[in-house]
């Protein structure tokens, strides 16, 4: 009996075809996708498809095919792409998704629906906004870099490591798109046409699912990240600590953050929300030509100076954020969680620009290199 059933099973397996096979060799892998909005409301989708050829022994040669199609929806644009290429289009391993500025300012949620709905997709593609058209970014052919997808994803990864961005991937984005009281910031890239390169401009601030047009410039992004409590592998600042020296270089101090501790306290008193963001940084000085940092007094003075400078910058950042009405600190969510009654009473979108956010940064030099 057992043998019979095994026979039947084997026959079934052999006779019935292979329903769901998706041969890896038969797909066109799309590694980066760019979306742009046209004036008539339709979408332009630009995809970059690397094709690798391997001669039996020699090195692999990689050619990149870039296609641009239009459609009413992302999915329709994709179908149009499919009609142009050999084999089938597969975005499940997409590394980067770029959005043109126009599109981002409108609404980005509809773009991503297809990624969330389809179980095949990896949700770890990075997203970024391009200052201008996403198509141009994807059509770039950066010299000395293998493929635009790899270039952009590694560029973004570099920013994460250097504490410039959160490493926003589609999965994380999903919650932030949907949840009221949480906004987010996405890397903003600009195209340098002369060098055929991209440049990390800063973090584009979003409100709900649209780009506000405001962004935190790249020299302040590290501080923003630290204020959110995120630190990459490396976080460094170069600050002007004095004006006294003649040689301009001597006025600056560069340090690296060794340890950061961030704490946010949200209070609701008399229907007034106040948020205190305090942060303690333990740093290591990596460049400071003017002084050898031998005296305790000097260090104390520097600590104070640096704290002041950073607090000042933090205030600037917060002002930008409130102006953009982009609650990247998730203060709204805190209010929702811990002060639900107040949350129900107010419209957070209207409330956020008016709340008081006070940052406080304390810096403590703990290391100053191998010379002293």
């Amino acid at each position, binding site marked *: 009996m057992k043998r019979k059933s095994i026979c039947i099973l084997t026959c079934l397996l052999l006779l019935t075809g292979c329903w769901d096979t998706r041969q890896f060799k038969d797909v066109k892998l799309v590694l980066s996708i760019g979306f742009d909005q046209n004036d008539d409301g339709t979408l332009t989708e630009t995809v970059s498809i690397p094709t690798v050829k391997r001669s039996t022994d020699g090195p692999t040669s990689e050619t990149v095919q870039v296609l641009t199609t239009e459609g009413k929806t992302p999915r329709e644009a994709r179908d149009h792409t499919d009609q142009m290429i050999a084999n089938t289009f597969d975005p*499940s391993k997409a590394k980067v998704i770029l959005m043109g500025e126009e599109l981002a300012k409108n609404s980005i949620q509809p773009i991503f629906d297809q990624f969330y709905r389809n179980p095949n997709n990896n949700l770890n593609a990075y997203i970024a906004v391009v200052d201008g058209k996403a198509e141009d970014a994807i059509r770039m052919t950066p010299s000395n870099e293998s493929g635009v997808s790899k270039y952009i994803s590694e560029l973004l990864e570099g920013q994460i490591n250097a504490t410039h961005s959160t490493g926003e991937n589609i999965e994380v984005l999903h919650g932030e798109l949907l949840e009221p009281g949480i906004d987010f910031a996405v890397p903003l890239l600009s195209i340098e046409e002369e060098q055929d390169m991209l440049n990390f401009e800063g973090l584009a601030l979003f409100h709900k699912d649209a780009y506000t047009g405001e962004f935190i410039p790249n020299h302040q992004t590290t501080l923003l990240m630290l204020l959110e409590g995120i630190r990459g592998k490396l976080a460094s600042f170069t600050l002007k600590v004095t004006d006294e020296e003649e040689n301009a270089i001597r006025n600056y101090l560069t340090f690296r953050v060794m340890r950061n501790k961030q704490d946010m306290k949200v209070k609701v008193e008399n229907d007034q929300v106040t948020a205190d963001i305090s942060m303690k940084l333990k740093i290591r000085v990596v460049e400071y030509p003017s002084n050898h940092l031998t005296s305790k007094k000097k260090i104390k003075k520097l600590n104070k100076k640096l704290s002041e400078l950073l607090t000042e910058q933090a205030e600037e950042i917060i002002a930008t954020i409130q102006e953009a009405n982009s609650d990247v600190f998730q203060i709204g969510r805190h209010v929702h969680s811990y002060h639900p009654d107040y949350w129900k009473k107010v419209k957070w979108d209207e409330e956020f620009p008016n709340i008081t956010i006070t940052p406080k940064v304390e810096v403590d030099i703990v290391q100053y290199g191998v010379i002293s």
Partner: protein
Amino acid sequence: MGFLRNLLGTRDKIEDSSHKGQDQQPNQPSSKKLSENVEYLLNEFKRTDDLKIRAMNNGQAVLMYFEPLVDQEKIQQNIFTPLEMGHVEHISEIPNARSSENLEEMIPTLLRGHAVYMEDGSKTITRFNVTSVFNRNVEEPQNEKIVRGSHDGFIENLMINLNLVRKKIEHRDLVVKYFKVGKKTNTNIAIVYMDGIADPEIVKKMEERIKAISVDMIQSPGYIEEFIEDNPYSPFPQMLNTERPDRVTANIMEGRIALMAEGSPTTLIAPSTFFMFYQASDDYNARWYTGTFVRLVRLASFIIAIGMPAFYIAVISFHYEVLPDELLLPVKSSINEIAYPPILEALIMVVIIELIRESGIRLPSPVGQTIGIVGGLVIGDAVVRAGLVSNLMVIVVALTAIASFVVPSNELSTTLRLMTFPLIFLAGTFGFVGIVFGFLFLTIHLTRLESFGVPYFAPVAPLSISDLKDTFVRLPLFMMKKRPKDAHPLQEKAMGESREWVQHEPDNNKN
């Protein structure tokens, strides 16, 4: 010597009882006339030419024996020398002579290589043991070599094999039981176990099953295995196969039963479990860290051997999303131009490897090397260059083959390579889901299997945590105080406190 005679006594008893079962005990009283006796025997042996009849005493007596079976020197030494020297009056007084009056009894005796002496005018027939023995040396078995430890191995002679075991277990509880199996071949087989440790239920089961065998010919334990194992339809070997005396004695001491047969160096051990096939004598001779490491590698090889091609196929034809970004393009570039679907690729490669293995196995070693070169280098390289098979698939299948050879037991290794096929099909049809179903069937099968009423997949299912000490890992021997439970030993304790001296030497702790 004393115990050997003792053994011979037992053997005759069992022999008789087993004969009873087959036919009525044959009895042909000898006649006083020599010619009648000779004629009877000649007829019984169909006048075969190698039955030598040597006339003595001017034709008054004959000495009969099978020429190929006897040792001429022994005849000279045991029969003629005492006669010539005048130590004895009559031939029947020679010390190792035995007498009988039953002609029929002489037939198996002659076949065993004895010489029979008959005299005219006397009913008494005297027989002498003058069997010639040709033996190999007890050298290390080719397929179970180890680095450290004893290098002897069983040979084709049952007595010598038993001798090796007895030498290793000098204890009164070691019991050997003889059986004769095969109606025509009359092969001697023996089961060996420790009385008081081995479970009598299992011994009884073993005896019953051996007695139930009714065939004309038994060649080797491999033959017997199929008659007595619990589930002959299972692809997994249910009795451990070994040629190493140290392995056999270790298993006997765990309460298992060894089954040996005349004419074969292979010993079967029952009841056995799946994980026994992954233990090698080397594990116990090495440091326990290395022993553990090697054993983990071996068990990992089980997964690789049966799952690797299936996993690869599932990945590249269903779930390529699981490839990390760095691997994506290298993998794609290597399979992009391949003509066949991966499942066919895998089948081609697996079959090629089996062909190479099978053709190389019986060839003399100089030719065997050629096969290795032709197979490994020429085909392996050419098949990739021709674009029939991707180089990744070659790596995967080669790794699978290597992993399957890691198993210390040849039987299981073959089984493993066979098990890849259904998994390849399942993976090619359902991807990961198929692999999971394949593994489910496999583990359920292993859990259901029993070897002599003992669960085959012990100590994992049923779980016995104390026995895991010698399954996935090999902990220090002094920590394995109990015998594994799967063999149902009567005596659980295998050792006492053996390292008590540590407490008496306080200095040791400091250093």
